[in-house]
């Protein structure tokens, strides 16, 4: 968490060469892909790992006594070690594989929410959550009688810490679920501090690291997070795979969620018993190939190193903020001190969708809309924003293309 962006030099050309898709042309124009916060592109290492498994070493896992099954099990389970290392988890049994962040949060909302929280207890989320970290808690509220409390944000787009702390006053809060980095504003939340406040008030805490882990080294033990979740496809990995980290004693105390093969210890019609964690939470044939792909992504990230990534992205973000802010009529949304490579903006006289359509004609991919964060949009008094987001492969020159093109978009709608 303490990577001060240093000026490590990333060889961006060499990195870009590892992403075949970046060489694509869109309607004859070079692709300028500024939508990595929605989902990142996949490096050769990830593609090769998946192809290698399908071509040379594949079978169903965990229950097989033959060579292919043993090798595939080893490859898949190696991802658990890699994920534990990436997060600095104390124990590989604390890594549960899920489809994506959304499933991870639903799992906790179900198993911890219905299994451990009592009706009348409260769950705290923030005013800048993704729908994935709102709707499951709403559904829990409606089904289980918990309360849902919203920690407000400041106008700069930062978590309002005193207001957050005040939510604990009545001692009812059992769980906090908060983003580690906003997918709209780019703001980081001060994770250590909000964890401390939650713990000081006897509440457990889940951090949504979907965005943060792409840009910063995460240490769940240093953070003392109870749950930490992320989604593989934003971390240059395949779709269909994500990670729920949970402290072992919490996972052990939680009832299972889905039932089926692999999550049981024994089955009889009267009563079944559950496998140990993490298998208790992994029912059915897992996303084997996707796990193998995620391992390649994690190793690829580790080889580059978070120091280099953070330095590169900090430079990109500074450049992006400078270039975009200079455009007349353009408003950057969110001015947090501590922020990552995501810039949302609006433009006078042009709706975000229209901006995105025009940029697309120039080969530039940005996102436009509510970014699955409608309540945040309402808080900001907006309907939608356009959003440019950066990955390891993004170059300052691409940001210049964006800024130059936005000037023309502005003219167009003049």
């Amino acid at each position, binding site marked *: 968490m303490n990577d001060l962006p240093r000026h490590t030099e990333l060889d961006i050309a060499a990195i870009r060469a590892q992403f075949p898709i970046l060489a694509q042309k869109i309607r004859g124009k070079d692709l300028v892909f500024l939508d990595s916060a929605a989902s990142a592109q996949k490096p050769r290492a990830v593609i090769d790992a998946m192809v290698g498994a399908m071509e040379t070493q594949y079978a169903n896992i965990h229950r097989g006594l033959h060579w292919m099954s043993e090798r595939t099990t080893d490859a898949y389970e190696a991802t658990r070690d890699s994920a534990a290392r990436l997060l600095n988890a104390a124990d590989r049994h604390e890594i549960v594989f899920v489809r994506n962040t959304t499933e991870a949060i639903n799992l906790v909302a179900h198993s911890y929410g219905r299994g451990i929280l009592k009706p009348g207890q409260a769950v705290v989320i923030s005013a800048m959550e993704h729908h994935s970290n709102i709707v499951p808690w709403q559904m829990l509220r409606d089904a289980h009688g918990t309360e849902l409390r919203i920690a407000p944000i400041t106008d700069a787009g930062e978590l309002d810490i005193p207001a957050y702390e005040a939510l604990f006053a009545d001692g009812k809060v059992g769980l906090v679920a908060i983003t580690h980095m906003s997918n709209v504003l780019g703001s980081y939340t001060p994770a250590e501090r909000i964890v401390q406040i939650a713990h000081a008030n006897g509440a457990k805490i889940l951090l949504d690291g979907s965005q943060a882990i792409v840009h910063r080294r995460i240490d769940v033990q240093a953070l003392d997070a109870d749950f930490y979740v992320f989604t593989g496809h934003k971390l240059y990995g395949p779709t269909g795979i994500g990670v729920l980290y949970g402290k072992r004693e919490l996972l052990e105390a939680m009832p299972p969620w889905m039932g089926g093969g692999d999550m049981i210890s024994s089955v009889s019609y009267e009563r079944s018993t559950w496998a140990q964690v993490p298998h208790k939470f992994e029912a059915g044939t897992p996303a084997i190939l996707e796990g193998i792909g995620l391992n390649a992504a994690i190793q690829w990230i580790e080889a580059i190193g978070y120091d280099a990534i953070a330095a590169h992205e900090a430079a990109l973000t500074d450049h992006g903020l400078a270039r975009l802010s200079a455009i007349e009529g353009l408003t950057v949304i969110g001015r947090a001190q501590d922020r990552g490579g995501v810039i949302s903006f609006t433009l006078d006289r042009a*709706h*975000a*969708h*229209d901006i995105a*359509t*025009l940029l697309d*004609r*120039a080969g530039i991919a940005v996102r*436009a*809309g*509510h970014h699955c964060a*409608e309540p945040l*949009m309402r808080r900001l008094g907006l*309907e*939608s924003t356009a959003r440019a987001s950066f990955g390891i492969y993004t170059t300052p020159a691409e940001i210049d293309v964006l800024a130059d*093109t936005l000037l*023309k*978009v502005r003219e*167009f*709608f003049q």
Partner: protein
Amino acid sequence: MFEDVRDLYNATIIERGRRPRHMRRLDDFDVTAKGDNPMCGDRVQVWVKYAADSTIAATGFDARGCEISKAAADLMVEAVAGHTAEDTKRLFAAFLTLAQTGQCPDCAEALAPMQPLAAVHEYPSRVKCATLPWHALLAALDDKGNASSE
């Protein structure tokens, strides 16, 4: 630079998107419905007043969203004026074909006001912007309350 997008963002669309002529709430109405496109956040509400012969006497709308959806709503009001609910459904089916393909072999003359949207078919993810007000209108005519252009 953006010469080619003038087919969609033509003078009519820009004008109607910016200064819609029929964007108003009807105080005296028979049916109303909302429409939303959950994927992007566009919203529209439509109010309809029938004439004694069950044709549409007046339509008003309120929209938040892009130029395309506002212009589409504004033009729609003109296209459906004087038509029955049945007719309006036929008009929508024809407009859907126009929006999705750029062609409209059996477009009634009544659909002429929608012609400025013909190029939207080249922008597949924007087709829903153009059809959203129609979904809301049809929901109103069916007295359904809500529609979505998913």
